[in-house]
């Protein structure tokens, strides 16, 4: 008896909590509104199924609980009913999967006009590299990392000389320009996570991973690490600032390039390689 009321209370309570509690996702600041839409579709479908199943159970408990003289029905199978339930479930699943896969297709297809930005993670700080005037990032390798080359940029690659290096500082990006975020780690797994952008991806030492997004709102957004990376995981924070184009250019002009930092990159780099 009470259990029937409890089951109803679970459904009603869950729906009320969902609708009236103040906890919901943070306002989006990227183009990935589609992800939010797919998530909302999923909430509707799964919420309806949850309510239907639990309320049906509540009904059964009220209606068919043991009383003197009650006899249960004897019905081992009902092929027609089972078939219909399977078909309906299949349709529900397809209704969630189809938009999910379409949006995933967009998520993994980087538009040609996207500019590359590299994020480099280390225990426990964020660094960044922008391609400089030639629009190309130079090669990099963890084996080249040293005190004066913290990101491991290959000094023999001419594309790397003008790369803008932002070490352990905030990243700025211009609004409304798609960004191809290349992710690299110099030690353990990390994950570049900005809740407002909705997108995230692990960074794996030894390979370059990526995602892309277009910032749609100016402001300061906190970067967190979302893949356990040791004892400092919880304090591995940083900021991304989305600027207007003019503000971005001002910031960019104040940054140092790899050749600024390394002095004469060719020479020191060759010594470095020779010693390997």
């Amino acid at each position, binding site marked *: 008896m009470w259990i029937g009321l409890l089951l109803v209370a679970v459904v009603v309570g869950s729906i009320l909590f969902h609708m009236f509690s103040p906890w919901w996702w943070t306002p989006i600041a990227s183009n990935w509104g589609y992800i939010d839409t797919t998530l909302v579709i999923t909430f509707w479908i*799964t919420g309806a199924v949850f309510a239907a199943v639990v309320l049906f159970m509540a009904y059964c408990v009220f209606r068919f*609980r043991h009383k003197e003289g009650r006899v249960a029905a004897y019905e081992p*199978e*009902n092929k027609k009913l089972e078939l219909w*339930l399977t078909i309906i479930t299949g349709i529900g699943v397809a209704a969630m*999967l189809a938009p999910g896969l379409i949006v*995933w297709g967009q998520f993994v297809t980087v538009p040609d006009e996207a500019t590359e930005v590299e994020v480099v993670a280390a225990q426990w700080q964020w660094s960044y590299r922008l391609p400089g005037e030639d629009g190309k990032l130079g090669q990099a390798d963890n084996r080249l990392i040293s005190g004066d080359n913290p990101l491991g940029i290959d000094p023999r690659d001419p594309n790397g000389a003008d790369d803008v290096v932002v070490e352990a500082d905030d990243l700025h990006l211009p609004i409304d320009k798609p960004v191809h975020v290349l992710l690299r780690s110099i030690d*353990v797994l990390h994950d570049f996570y900005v809740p407002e952008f909705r997108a995230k991806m692990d960074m794996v030492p*030894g390979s370059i991973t990526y995602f892309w997004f277009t910032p749609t709102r100016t402001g300061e957004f906190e970067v967190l690490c979302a893949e356990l990376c040791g004892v400092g995981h919880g304090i591995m924070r940083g900021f991304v600032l989305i600027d207007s184009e003019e503000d971005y250019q001002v910031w960019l002009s104040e940054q140092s390039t790899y050749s600024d930092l390394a002095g004469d990159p060719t020479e020191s780099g060759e010594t470095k390689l020779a010693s390997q």
Partner: protein
Amino acid sequence: MVDVPTPLPPDVPPAEVPEVELYHAKSYWTKYIFAQDAKVIAIQYSCTAIAIGLVALVLSWLMRLQLGFPDLFDFITPEAYYQFVTMHGMIMVVYLLTALFLGGFGNYLIPLMVGARDMVFPYVNMLSFWVYLLAVLVLVASFFVPGGPTGAGWTLYPPQAILSGTPGSAEGDLGIILMLVSLILFIIGFTMGGLNYVVTVLQGRARGMTLMRMPLTVWGIFTATVMALLAFPALLVASVMMLFDRLLGTSFFMPSLVEFGEQLQYGGGSPILFQHLFWFFGHPEVYIVALPAFGIVSDLISVHARKNIFGYRMMVWAIVGIGALSFIVWAHHMYVSGMHPYFGFFFATTTLIIAIPTAIKVYNWVLTLWRGDIHLTIPMLFALGFIVTFVNGGLTGLFLGNVVVDVPLSDTMFVVAHFHMVMGVAPIMVIMGAIYHWYPKMTGRMYNEAMGQFHFWVTFVGAYAIFFPMHYVGLVGVPRRYPELGDPAFVTQSVDGLNAFISLAAFAVGFAQIVFLFNIYWSLRNGRDAGGNPWRATTLEWQTADTPPGHGNFGDELPVVYRWAYDYSVPGAPEDFIAQNDPTPVSQAEPT
């Protein structure tokens, strides 16, 4: 409606081989300590699993103290917090849930339910428990070594798991080594038991016990064991390789990397390869825990609703189908791992397909309630609690399985809430229900009803109050494995109050488990005499000559099986159940 009369009497093949006399233990030591009786081994497994589970419970309290009331407890440093997280997760998944369902319920129920005198290899079965105990002791030892237990997270992802930035993995620390050694031991011990369960089900059944007459409990445990035998080897090789990376300096999972400014001697290994191996084990593991729960709960619902399980054959095929499918969905744990993005299309599709047989199981449970004669006993209450929490946790799996929806949610508290609901709370509901259900058979006594009611209500309401709101903490964007979030701008409405509430609910639920254990202990002496078949159930374990059953289970004569396990409320039968070994013909019988 199937009402085809079967030929009478139902066919039972003649015995092919004469029965062999069992060797009975003669001393206290061989009867209760180095025991070869599956029922004693089951109780040894269960007590060990519950004991180590209590450690995990205390660890979860410590975590909730930190999350609910940050800054209040100085001894919970980030190092300690990560150690709590890691040990809690590993203990719950492997050393409690797997061991209790397979080593505990498997050992107790398989021989009794299929009508066998014991497991087919009793000596190996004994070794299985002792190796498991050794694995647990090695795990516990890691709390007492320099550096403490590992804090690498239960997923043990390299390179972090064996590098010095992680608690228990610094130079000279033993935590990670003991963790890996303990896992290797566990897998060895499990394999010895698992082979036993599979061979007993295939070769040790009583006459007339066809596969399609087996109770779903046996089907669930059997399928889960086959899966475990196929899945655990992946974890075994991953553990051995990581041990080599740590101890011998090999580079199976270690690429070139720089640790705190220093070039390490590793190079060429693949961190993602470890993740594939881990989840090739890890995802089937979810169903290794879930399938026994599915099987057991089917039987609890059927017995206590006095109605045959709805769609038995569909239920069997759903168990087998889920078991098979669960081997091709593992990378849905890795959508944001940096693996090739096109994998996402494949694994999202397989993952959502697995929802269909799972949904069929749920429908059949609730359709078994429909037009039943529902006795709201404690096992039934826990079965209902299971359905609610399992449906809830299963549905949030559709968020996380649907690749692009997973992107914002992965590694947030939403994931923590999801897997606790679906493979923590739901299977534990079944474990509780099953313990109440079979306690009268194991002890001959009935549990205390009032304590059982208290236990159910606090556990169910409390667990839902913990994990339902936790989804929304994750939806806000709060990442998992953060001992302290602080006050970042993306948290538009502070989750501190909600976290404190969740912690209080967690303490209440933990307390209720102590009442449960007290009930188990108290009723051993003070419970009323339960009789041999208090639930008026059909399956063979309730038809034994003695309660609790003695060594050899069935007294002088092995049972002969004439019908399926679900003849409840059969029209025309004198009672509302017909035992599986009852030869009396009735007009209606199992679906054929």
